[in-house]
């Protein structure tokens, strides 16, 4: 189970609603996480001035938007919001979204690398009873 980075043009959902999933306000808490997203989404400082969002598609087929946030005094991106792209007025399924986001984390952690390993993420998830860990 993994996720696929896609472009805005590849988004299948037509006229989607954006449903807030979560926000990370301190990507620089451990700098490797910011660097991993910069590399994966080819972000440049120019993105802080009206650049495009990032998108991914989960293996479930659901699609998500990553809004990269800029903050004075910090390197870009300082944070990231994740929104589910929901077709029309469809209801959202919280657990289904949580499963997708878990797989996003499983994709992200190896991108960070070093001491941040998939094994450690999954072990942490198991201790805390994350169903998909």
């Amino acid at each position: 189970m993994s996720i696929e980075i896609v472009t805005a043009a590849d988004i299948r959902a037509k006229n989607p609603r954006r449903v807030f999933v979560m926000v990370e306000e301190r990507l620089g808490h451990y700098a490797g996480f910011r660097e991993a997203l910069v590399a994966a989404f080819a972000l440049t400082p120019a993105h802080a001035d009206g650049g495009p969002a990032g998108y991914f598609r989960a293996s479930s087929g659901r699609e998500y938007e990553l809004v990269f946030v800029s903050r004075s005094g910090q390197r870009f991106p300082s944070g990231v919001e994740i929104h589910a792209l929901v077709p029309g007025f469809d209801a959202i399924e919280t657990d289904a979204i949580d499963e997708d986001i878990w797989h996003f984390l499983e994709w992200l952690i190896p991108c960070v690398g070093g001491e941040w390993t998939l094994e450690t993420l999954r072990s942490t998830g198991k201790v805390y009873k994350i169903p998909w860990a």
Partner: protein
Amino acid sequence: MSTSPDYTVASELPPEIRKHYPFASRFMRVNGHRMHYVDEGEGDPVLLLHGNPTWSFLYRKFIPLLKAAGYRVIAPDHIGFGLSDKPAREHDYSLENHIANLAGFIRRLGLKRLTVVCQDWGGPTGLACALLDPAAIKAVVVMNTWAWPEPTVFHSSVFPWRMMHAPVVAPYLFQRRNILVERGLYLSVVHRERFLAEALPAYRFVMPDYDSRLLTRVFPRLIPLQSDDRSAATMRWLEQSLRSSTIPALIVWGKEEIVFPAECAQRFKALLPHAKGPLWVTGSHFLQEDSPEEICWHILAFLSGVDGRGQP
């Protein structure tokens, strides 16, 4: 028809929680935020300070025991926890803001001859307040906490602690999955069946949704791991100030504590060589859930000595 958000309605605790926490809820505005607290009894005040992810409910068994012994017992919920306001932005929270909130609370109540009882984040916040106004302090009781910039092994390990509050991982685990309340508390008490039946619903009730859980993920990030981390300077000041403090002190520690292991109790003893203890009680990190009566007995015996009243 009420249009209040959930966590305002939550101040009306349901009967199954109130029966364990039968105290009048009071509120005070501090630094622009509404702070919830319990204030019971008369006498010299005792301030009971909780940490992450609990609230004054943690001290529900302390309150009647200390009140019956002739003390005024005050138990606030940190801003961001319990029935207090919960600011919605991570940048609203810092160790310094928490200390300022608590110092403002103490000043507004005009507390004198105060005993500060603290555990987890109640330690850095409560001890800082004691050191800011030592003339108002009668004694401090430290339990399963720390007051220095160096992390414990638990806090410096990637598994599980640093992974839990890593970027992007943290809002997922702490806020969407509520892991500290749903699992962390359970793993950090000794009497687990009793905890599940009696206490977990109360901790769960005050954190019903994503927004209400924000501080559970911010507090871990405020624990300094390196000398230039954002709370490190305040923690250095705290340690240096404690070293020269003569405030009467009692050290109580959980025998099963792993977050702040026994070495932390000994480090407090080195900082405060005049302190009584460490006294070891049955208890993991949330030792108030495990041994409330025994801890209260130790506190009362200690305070009787401080007051020159002999043993209770």
